[in-house]
Each structure stands twice: as structure tokens, then as C-alpha cells.
């Protein structure tokens, strides 16, 4: 690692400003572009009409207004929240485990959420009249249980509680939960399509209720992870080095994993398993800016949101009015872009 690069440690304000601007631009683009043909002025006037004391009359009829405010906007906002959370969680996992391949699903959050969702779809009661939908709840609990299992298993390994044993425990738990999920899915084969639809991940039917559901988790977990970004720098050097600084590596690991997992579980619960974001965004930030988590974590937060909103714009416009699964877009657009960044990088990643 190059944690000693002095120039890379501090986060210049113009990067934050640039990333914030990018996020704003993508959000506005996301609001303007869509399969329904609604004029940009209509959207602007409708937005202004919602600001009190401006007295601007919206030029949209009720249906167009509903499309913009009940369908398109929540989708854009959820895209920001999901993209940001997955990217921040990914950067935290990579730092904690000192592993560039770590992503938010590493310790079984994805597999656990998949199992939870399958259980809810296959055996869940008819919840049409319920106050809350059991599917996101089951996925959320599944993700937390998956990671908790991996942590307990890794923690009780006799040879020592290192990052590597934790990763191996996560691999075992994820494989076990995925196998269980596949078994159930085959047994209850009439649920196959619904389960697959969920696993592929999408923002297709996102509404404000999903936004309200995840907002507290995303804000809370992001604030904690951004606040503790210095600890990630210490952790990324090594457990013994962290100990010499008077820190408890396993406690810090638990703390960071805990918050990254909580946030991941929340977004997975509403959007399914959207892949690739948690790996590609932190690495792109790292390759383009600095290897210090003091820079990577906050920038991942901003750029992750932009990336997913952009990917979602592609997903709903390229074959409009048909949708492409967003996971396909993140990989299809993200992978070549990432390859270019990788080729141009000057070896910042050791």
C-alpha cells in the first residue's frame, strides 16, 4: 500500500465539489429522461410549483405529474441511495479485509438476503393487506443473519481472528446459504420467476415508500463509515500496526463490518442484488485519485450514487419502453469503463 503518499491523504475540496456537481447533474438528467415523453419545462415548472411562495403554475396534467413525482423521482432518489450505500459499504469491506476483491456481499449478505427473499416468496403468507411487505423485511433479516453467521464462525476459529479467517468463514456461509436458497427455489418451482426477478435486482417499481424505508439506514450507516474513514486507513495497513497505535483491530472490524452490513442489508431489501457497484466505484475512485480511505469513502458515496442513477437511465431508455435489468447495465457499462481506468492508472494500487 501507499498509505504514506502525503499528497493522497487529504481530500481536496474541488474533488468533493466536482463529485457533488456530477451527482446533481445525473439526478437532474434522471428526472428529465424517461420513456414517458414529458417536456423538460413541464418538469421544471412542476418542480417550482412545489416550492412554497414561488407561485409557479405547473404545466403538467395530473397524470404527467404523477409519472414524474410518483414514479420517476422516487426511482432516481432510490438509485442515489442504493448506489451510494453499496459503494461506501464496498470501500469499507475492501479496507477492513485488505482485499481488493471484497464487495458488500462478501460475508454472505447477498446470499442471506437471497435466502430470506426466497423464503418470503415461497412460504410467506398472503400479505396484500398488510401494513409492511414481508419480502424486504425477510431479505433484510436474511442479510444480517448471513453476515452474523459468518462473523461468529470466523470469530470462533481457533487459529486466530484475522481478516482471512473471516473471509473464509464468509465464503463457507455464503455457499451454504446459496445452496439452501437454490434447493428451496427448485422445490417451490412455481416461485422461480419471482425469485429470479428479485435476485437480478431492479429499481423498476420503486416508490417513495421504499425510499422512506432505506433512507434512515443509508444516512446513518454512511455517516458512521465516512466519520470512521481514518480507521480504515489504519486497518488497511495491518492488524499489528493498528494494535501498536492502541486500537483493537477486531473491534474496529466488527464496528465497520456491522455498519456496512446494516446499510447493505437495507438497500438489498428494496432493490435486490445489484452487482458490481460495490467493487467498481471504490476502485475507480482509488485509481483516479488516492489510495487513502479518507478520500475514497466520501468520494465513493457521491460517485456511487451518480453511477447507479446513470446506469438506471441506460436501463430504462436504451430499449424504451422496455427495461433492461440494471445489474446487466452496471456490468456491461461498468466493466469496460473500469478496464480503461485500470489501464490508465499509474499503479496506485500495489
Amino acid at each position, binding site marked *: 500500500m501507499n498509505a504514506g503518499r502525503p499528497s493522497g491523504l487529504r481530500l481536496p475540496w474541488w474533488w468533493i465539489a466536482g463529485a457533488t456537481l456530477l451527482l446533481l447533474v445525473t439526478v437532474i438528467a434522471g428526472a428529465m429522461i*424517461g*420513456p*414517458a*415523453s414529458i417536456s423538460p419545462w413541464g418538469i421544471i415548472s412542476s418542480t417550482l410549483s412545489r416550492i412554497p411562495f414561488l407561485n409557479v403554475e405547473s404545466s403538467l396534467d*395530473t*397524470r*404527467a405529474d*404523477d*409519472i414524474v*413525482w*410518483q*414514479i*420517476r423521482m*422516487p426511482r432516481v432518489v432510490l438509485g442515489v441511495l442504493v448506489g451510494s450505500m453499496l459503494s461506501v459499504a464496498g470501500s469499507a469491506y475492501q479496507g477492513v479485509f485488505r482485499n481488493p476483491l471484497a464487495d458488500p456481499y462478501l460475508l454472505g449478505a447477498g446470499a442471506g438476503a437471497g435466502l430470506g427473499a426466497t423464503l418470503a416468496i415461497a412460504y410467506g403468507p*398472503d*400479505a*396484500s393487506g398488510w401494513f409492511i411487505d414481508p419480502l424486504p423485511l425477510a431479505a433484510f433479516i436474511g442479510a444480517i443473519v448471513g453476515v452474523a453467521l459468518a462473523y461468529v464462525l470466523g470469530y470462533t476459529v481457533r487459529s486466530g481472528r484475522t481478516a482471512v479467517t473471516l473471509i473464509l468463514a464468509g465464503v463457507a456461509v455464503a455457499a451454504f446459504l446459496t445452496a439452501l436458497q437454490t434447493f428451496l427455489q*427448485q*422445490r417451490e*418451482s*412455481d*416461485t*422461480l*420467476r*419471482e425469485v429470479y*426477478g428479485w435476485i437480478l435486482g*431492479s429499481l*423498476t*417499481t420503486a*416508490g*417513495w*415508500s421504499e425510499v422512506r424505508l432505506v433512507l434512515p439506514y443509508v444516512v446513518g450507516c454512511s455517516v458512521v463509515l465516512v466519520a470512521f474513514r481514518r480507521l480504515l486507513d489504519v486497518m488497511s495497513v495491518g492488524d499489528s500496526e493498528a494494535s501498536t497505535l492502541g486500537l483493537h483491530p477486531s473491534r474496529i472490524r466488527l464496528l465497520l463490518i456491522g455498519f456496512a452490513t446494516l446499510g447493505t442489508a437495507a438497500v438489498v431489501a428494496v432493490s435486490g442484488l445489484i452487482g458490481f457497484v460495490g467493487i467498481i466505484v471504490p476502485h475507480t475512485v482509488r485509481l483516479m485519485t488516492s489510495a487513502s480511505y479518507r478520500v475514497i469513502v466520501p468520494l465513493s458515496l457521491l460517485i456511487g450514487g451518480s453511477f447507479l442513477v446513470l446506469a438506471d437511465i441506460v436501463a*430504462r431508455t436504451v*430499449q*424504451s*419502453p*422496455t*427495461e433492461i435489468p440494471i445489474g446487466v447495465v452496471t456490468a456491461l457499462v461498468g466493466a469496460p469503463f473500469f478496464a480503461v481506468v485500470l489501464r490508465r492508472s499509474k499503479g496506485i494500487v500495489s
Partner: protein
Amino acid sequence: MFKRTTLLAMALALVAVSCSSNDAADATTLPTQATTTSAPASTTTEAMESRFPVTIEAGNGAVTVEARPERIVSISPTSTEVLFAIGAGDQVVAVDSLSNYPPEAPITEMSAWTPSIEAIAEYDPDLVFISFDPGDLIAGLEALSIPVILHGTALSLEDAYTQWEQTGIATGHTSEALDVVSDTQSRLVDAVESIANDAQGLTYYYELEDVLYTATSASFIGQVIAPTGLSNIADEAPDPDGFGYPQLSQEFIVESDPTLILLADTICCGQSSETVAARPGWGSMTAVTNGGVVELNDDIASRWSPRVVELLDAIVEALSSLVAVDG
């Protein structure tokens, strides 16, 4: 409506036809629509029904059934419905876990998605119906000398009729199968005629799943609905795989504001007119405010059995009450 003799002649032609390729699509090329005016019938129904062995051209190529099958296993819900509809139900010994209609079908734990050759063989069948081969199912059953008829997803009504007729021929119920086909044809025509031109200019959205998968006019169900004159809002969607089942954008559906919202996800996904009305942004749609949301039976909607008539009847009924209200 159709002459029995004509249909018999067509059926004979069916038996005789044998194609070189074993592509599933071959079934579509068979002459099945009884539209020719007349043809001489040289055999009586009785004579024909007892004539085994028969060879039919199924999705898996030419299949020969040596004698009237008495131990049929169906691991296709559609085939199960067809077998019972044409009077071959008594010959069926076991059906898969999704074959929930008719209620008297001998339902078992067998999976239609991951069928086990051993589980099927245990029933000692003399004929097996399947709707898709997930791997080596056909080869495995053939190795056990069990004849298998593959009747894959029908791409058109003609496809479905061909399959029903073949099912009749293979089980010794040819005339009943032909009756079911002609009865279905006339009931579909009746349903369409009952609404005359009322549906012209009206539109529909057909929902397969609550994540907004739909069926275009190119799909089987789309072809069933097309004669009503309703137009499908999904038809302007690009459909790269060509099977007619794209996933639509929510805002596109709301903007299109179809007259009818046809829900074929009431069982799988618990959708109803209430859940549709509660979706964000859907409340102001014409179909929601006008009572144009139609709850269909997903089981019928996902099969290509004679019950397809019930589906069209439900749609026509909803349409007539809408028109009556407007008028």
C-alpha cells in the same frame, strides 16, 4: 361449424406427416386449421380410434405409440388439462405437482421444472407428456423405451390446436380432441362477436408479473385477444428475444393509460384491482377509475389448454360492462 369428415381427414394427414427435423417449431408447420371445404372420409371414427400404432410429429420429432396407452404420466400442466378435456383422464396415472386442474387429476410431488427420470419411470408409464426438456429427460426415457411427447409452449392458437389433436391421436381420443378444437374455435369466435366493434380503438396492458413483465400481440395470449380489436400497448416495445414477453417501464404504462389492465399475476404475485390502485402514480389511470382492471386466473393464462376460452370470456365480459357504463 366444421364438418366432422373434414377434421378427420386433417387428422389422418397429421398422422401421416413426418418431418426430417426434430425442431420443436415443426409442430407449427402442420396443417391443422380445418378451413378446406371438403374431403372424403374413408374411415369411421370407431375404426380410426382403434388404429394403433400411431406416429405423431411432436416437438421432439416423430413419436410412435404402439398401443392405446393406459398408463400416461403428464409432467406438463397444459397436457394434463388437455388429456382430461379430451376424455383421456382415465388413462392418466400421475401428473406433476403444478398440474392442479382438473381437480381429479392424480397430482403427485413430481416437479415439472426438475423432472426425475426415475420418479417418472416408477409409475411404469406407457406414454409421457412433457412441455420442456431440462436436460436429458427425453433421451433418458427413450433409453427406457418409454415414448415421450414434447409439447412445448404454444406460439399460436394453431400450435395449441395441433398439440390437442396430437394428444387425441396418441391416446385414442381423436374425435373428442377434434371436437374440443372446433368447440374452442367457435367459442372464441362467439366471444369476439358478442362485443362486435365495441373494442375498436381501445387498448390493454397485460401484466404477467408485478415487476411489469407483459405479453405483446406476438405472444400466444396476445393472439387470443387480438381478434377483439383491442390493441396492446406493449406492441411498440422492442422485443429482442422475439417471444413477446418484454418488461415495460412503469411510466410508459401509466402514460399509455390503457382502457383495460389485465392481471395475469393474481396468484403468483397477489395482485388485484386494489393493489393496482394503490401503486404510486397508478391511481389516476382510466382503467383504475373506470373499473377496467380485470383479475385473470394466472394458471389458465400461463397454459395453452382449452380453458383459454375462459380467459377471453373474462376479458370480453369486463369490456362489455365498461362499454355499457360508458354508453
